């Protein structure tokens, strides 16, 4: 045997430039709307102009005669074809153990529309403009009804019922924690701090609008759906088994390049479901791409909480107990994971990084005449962090304890730690991330900077937020016990080609996260081969064994776990093959740096020599071992992962104009082991930008009277632009996750979780000397200016 060539050392931990960038930078990406099929038609969805109305009659006669029209379908047509409504993937049981109210969610309205933008009919035509023109000829006779858009209003007696079967608009009243223990903690409190806050409603706004292209094949009675989606297997399962009643194996779902998701592309939506069904009716491919105004109206929105929270403290500022009452807006219908967001993804995070021994939370939830609300980057965890960190900040102010000191005094320092709200943190070092952030943000120099700013007539403020998140969703049995109607494992397949290059098939889906690079690093590092010899395939039910997709910062923790488990099998089989070829005992074979070596000898085989032997099995133990080197693993995590960190924001406010400028934003996070630091930093930057967007700029507003969406375009909904944001200071500290193969925790949502509280704590710090006691997000110049004026009256 020849001595193998030296191969590159581990790729793990290197800021390798991304493999996917070449195609994105040269216009060669293939997003859903870029895909065209022969003879395709175009769909246009006619949407409700009313927030709440009965549909008395739909006349499509004139529209059907319009040029180019191929088909027009309404809710009646779907009902006649036994097409079901869209399912909800998470069942919440209420405070009395009763299942949540789960009214139907028709893919096209049946009898009633419940929010502006609700789908009423689909027009399919030869061109998009013909479909759109024809839709204008559909006559819908509406009888408008009173609407309610705010969750608190919806739960009041006498509010209009969004669903006839849910007269009080309540989906569930849910609780978590020990109420009696919490009341006891409050009874012995030295001090109680109370806050009332809102978590503003957001519209996710991935820059690629939702899009779908469905095709039916008469040849084998099968369907192919291209769709901008974060989890194509889940999309297929929900669509086939619950809505269309199709055999799962007859539907292939492909999520090609996807231009950002942030949660909004997790869900099964009406549009792709309707055109998949309709593609058989018209026997043509059908393309639909949302216009931005449709995205505003029909993408699942995020957040929208009203919360009252109280903290009980002893004389030393130690937290004794916390009680929280939240009202959550679920929108007109239950989106795929909507009910889980303000419950198990929120209440369980209310311990934060602190030892608060007793916590009790109640969440009331309402149907309203607004778009459905579901997971948006962070999903429940930003809302929880905002409650905890706004509350802790006010505690420190009221008790005149330093903001850093009150946090240190209450930090969890021993692990594992069982919180009073169900989660068991495996590991962390909250002092390390706090100290790192204090240094990076030069907190020691803040008083000087504040004094200098005041000389210029500006108000400086410093805000802190520590956070915890539960990522790596999730142990399937735990999630199932909490109401999830799906498993939450991940699948990975390692296909070693005869010449030693590798194709990886992952159930995770990349829509910006750079999996094609990070996962290739994991594989290349383990097998000791160049990163360029590893390609990663994702987003296609026709090529990938199975997948639960990407959300909740789960890809590296769970998807990476599956790939690691498959690599274990590759290595184990490789050792068997090498042992045979090297005429050694299997237990004597070591695999390191891409070489199989007989321990203590120079007898060695390169990875590619072993893979070739697997596919050209001339000298091969065929009696004991199958040829080939292709392994699949399904990995179900043992626990959630718990990324944590400290974010510090410094703002300067012009009291004359109310303009808030972020002069510095620092994030020091613990994501466990890091595969590609460059990509991780990029994820933090993006998350922080969305968090700052929520705190200062973004706000989804419905008119309370008419139910119209007032922020229905980029002229009304303020997206963060380059000149709204500073450069960020980002650092990491590492405690490796104790229970997954790579020791990783996930980094996708941290920025959006920590930033809103850090920013608002800084804004209120800057304004407190002016007498401003409270301000809700977004802290727009108008709101800040008004708050200053009112405080000075």
């Amino acid at each position, binding site marked *: 045997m020849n001595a193998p060539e030296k191969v590159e050392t581990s790729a793990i931990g290197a800021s390798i430039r991304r493999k996917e960038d070449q195609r994105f930078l040269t216009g060669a990406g293939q997003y859903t*709307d870029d895909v065209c099929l022969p003879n395709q038609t175009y769909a246009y969805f006619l949407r409700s102009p009313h927030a709440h109305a009965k549909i008395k009659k739909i006349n499509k006669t004139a529209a059907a005669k319009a040029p180019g029209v191929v088909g027009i379908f309404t809710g009646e047509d779907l009902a006649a074809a036994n097409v079901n409504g869209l399912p909800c993937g998470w069942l919440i049981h209420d405070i009395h153990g009763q299942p949540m109210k789960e009214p139907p969610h028709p893919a096209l309205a049946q009898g009633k529309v419940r929010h502006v933008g609700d789908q009423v009919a689909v027009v399919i035509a030869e061109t998009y403009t013909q479909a759109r023109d024809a839709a204008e000829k559909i006559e819908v006779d509406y009888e408008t009804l009173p609407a309610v858009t705010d969750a608190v209003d919806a739960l009041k007696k006498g509010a209009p019922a969004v669903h006839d079967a849910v007269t009080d608009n309540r989906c569930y009243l849910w609780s978590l924690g020990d109420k009696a223990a919490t009341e006891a903690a409050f009874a012995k409190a030295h001090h109680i701090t109370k806050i009332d806050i809102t978590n503003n409603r957001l519209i996710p706004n991935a820059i*690629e609008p939702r899009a779908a292209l469905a095709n039916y094949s008469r040849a084998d009675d099968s369907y192919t759906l291209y769709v901008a989606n974060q989890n194509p297997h889940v999309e297929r399962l929900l669509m086939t088994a619950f809505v269309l009643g199709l055999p799962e194996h007859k539907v292939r779902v492909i999520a090609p390049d996807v231009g950002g998701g942030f949660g909004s592309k997790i869900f099964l939506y009406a549009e792709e479901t309707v055109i998949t069904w309709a593609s058989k009716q018209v026997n043509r491919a059908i393309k639909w791409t949302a216009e*931005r105004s449709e995205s505003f109206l029909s993408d699942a929105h995020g957040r929208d909480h009203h919360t009252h929270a109280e903290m009980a403290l002893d004389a030393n500022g130690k937290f004794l107990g916390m009680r929280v009452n939240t009202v959550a807006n679920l929108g007109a219908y239950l989106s795929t994971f909507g009910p889980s967001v303000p419950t198990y993804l929120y209440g369980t995070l209310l311990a934060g990084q602190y030892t608060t021994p007793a916590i009790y939370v109640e969440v009331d939830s309402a149907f309203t005449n607004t778009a459905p609300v579901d997971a948006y980057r962070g999903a429940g965890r930003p809302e929880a962090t905002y409650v905890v960190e706004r509350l802790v900040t006010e505690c420190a102010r009221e008790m005149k304890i330093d903001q850093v000191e009150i946090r240190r005094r209450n930090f969890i320092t021993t692990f594992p730690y069982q919180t009073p709200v169900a989660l068991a943190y495996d590991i962390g070092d909250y002092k390390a991330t706090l100290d790192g952030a204090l240094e990076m943000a030069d907190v020691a120099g803040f008083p000087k900077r504040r004094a200098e700013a005041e000389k210029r007539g500006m108000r400086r403020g410093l805000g802190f937020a520590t956070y915890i998140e539960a990522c790596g969703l999730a142990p399937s049995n735990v999630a199932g016990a909490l109401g999830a109607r799906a498993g939450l494992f991940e699948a990975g397949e390692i296909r070693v080609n005869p010449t030693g290059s590798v194709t990886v098939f992952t159930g995770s889906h990349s829509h910006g996260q750079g999996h094609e690079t990070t996962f290739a690093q994991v594989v290349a590092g383990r097998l000791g081969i160049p990163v360029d010899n590893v390609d990663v395939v994702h987003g296609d039910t026709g090529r990938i064994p199975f997948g639960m997709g990407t959300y909740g910062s789960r890809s590296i923790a769970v998807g990476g776990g599956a790939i690691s488990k498959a690599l274990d099998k590759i290595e184990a089989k490789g050792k068997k093959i090498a042992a045979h070829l090297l005429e050694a005992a299997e237990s004597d074979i070591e695999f390191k740096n891409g070489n199989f070596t007989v321990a203590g000898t120079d007898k060695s085989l390169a990875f590619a020599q072993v893979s070739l032997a697997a596919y050209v099995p001339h000298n091969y133990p065929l009696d004991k071992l199958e040829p080939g080197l292709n392994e699949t693993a399904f990995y179900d995590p043992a626990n959630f992962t718990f990324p944590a960190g400290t974010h510090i924001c410094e703002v300067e406010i012009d009291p004359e104009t109310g303009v808030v400028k972020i002069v510095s934003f620092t994030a020091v996070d613990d994501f466990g082991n890091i595969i590609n630091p460059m990509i991780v930093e990029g994820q933090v930057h993006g998350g922080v*930008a969305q968090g700052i967007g929520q705190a200062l700029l973004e706000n989804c507003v419905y008119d309370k009277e008419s139910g119209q969406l007032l922020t229905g375009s980029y002229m009304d909904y303020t997206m963060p*632009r*380059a000149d709204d944001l500073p450069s960020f200071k980002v650092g990491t500290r590492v405690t490796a996750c104790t229970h997954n193969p790579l020791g990783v925790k996930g980094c996708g949502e941290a920025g959006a979780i920590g930033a809103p509280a850090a920013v608002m704590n800084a804004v209120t710090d800057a304004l407190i000397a002016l007498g401003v006691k409270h301000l809700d997000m977004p802290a727009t110049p108008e709101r800040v200016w008004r708050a200053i004026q009112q405080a000075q009256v």
Partner: protein
Amino acid sequence: MSTTLSLTVNGKAVSTQVDPRTLLVQFIRENLNLTGTHVGCDTGQCGACTVFVNGNAVKACMTLAVQCGGAQITTIEGISKPNGEMHPMQAAFKECHGLQCGFCTPGMVISAIDLVKRNGKALTEESIRAGLDGNFCRCTGYHNIVKAVQLGAANMKGA
């Protein structure tokens, strides 16, 4: 109803019939199948559709194709050298991780090149941020885009 349109796209002469209400971005994407130019908003705010028209960065969703008769159009597909070597600004976006999902990227790169052409050495972080005001990115928080434009500008001068 259709009208004749003749123009040059990425160095190639094109002459064809178009419906007068066809937007430049539709013409580029649907008639020429150059799908690197994206539509993010239809209303001129997001900048994903930015292309060069006669050397100036233009939002192709706010321009009718028939307004571009005789024009020289360059899309993201025409930015690299014919041998495939990336433009210094494209290379800088890769080097600085100035892109994630890639959807805003073609428009962002064209706006960045335009910014350097218009401002030359005068570019600061502040002027880059102000100059990219018409291009949304939801993924990067702009941090690495700013770094990429600084690097790309430096390398464009050397190019």
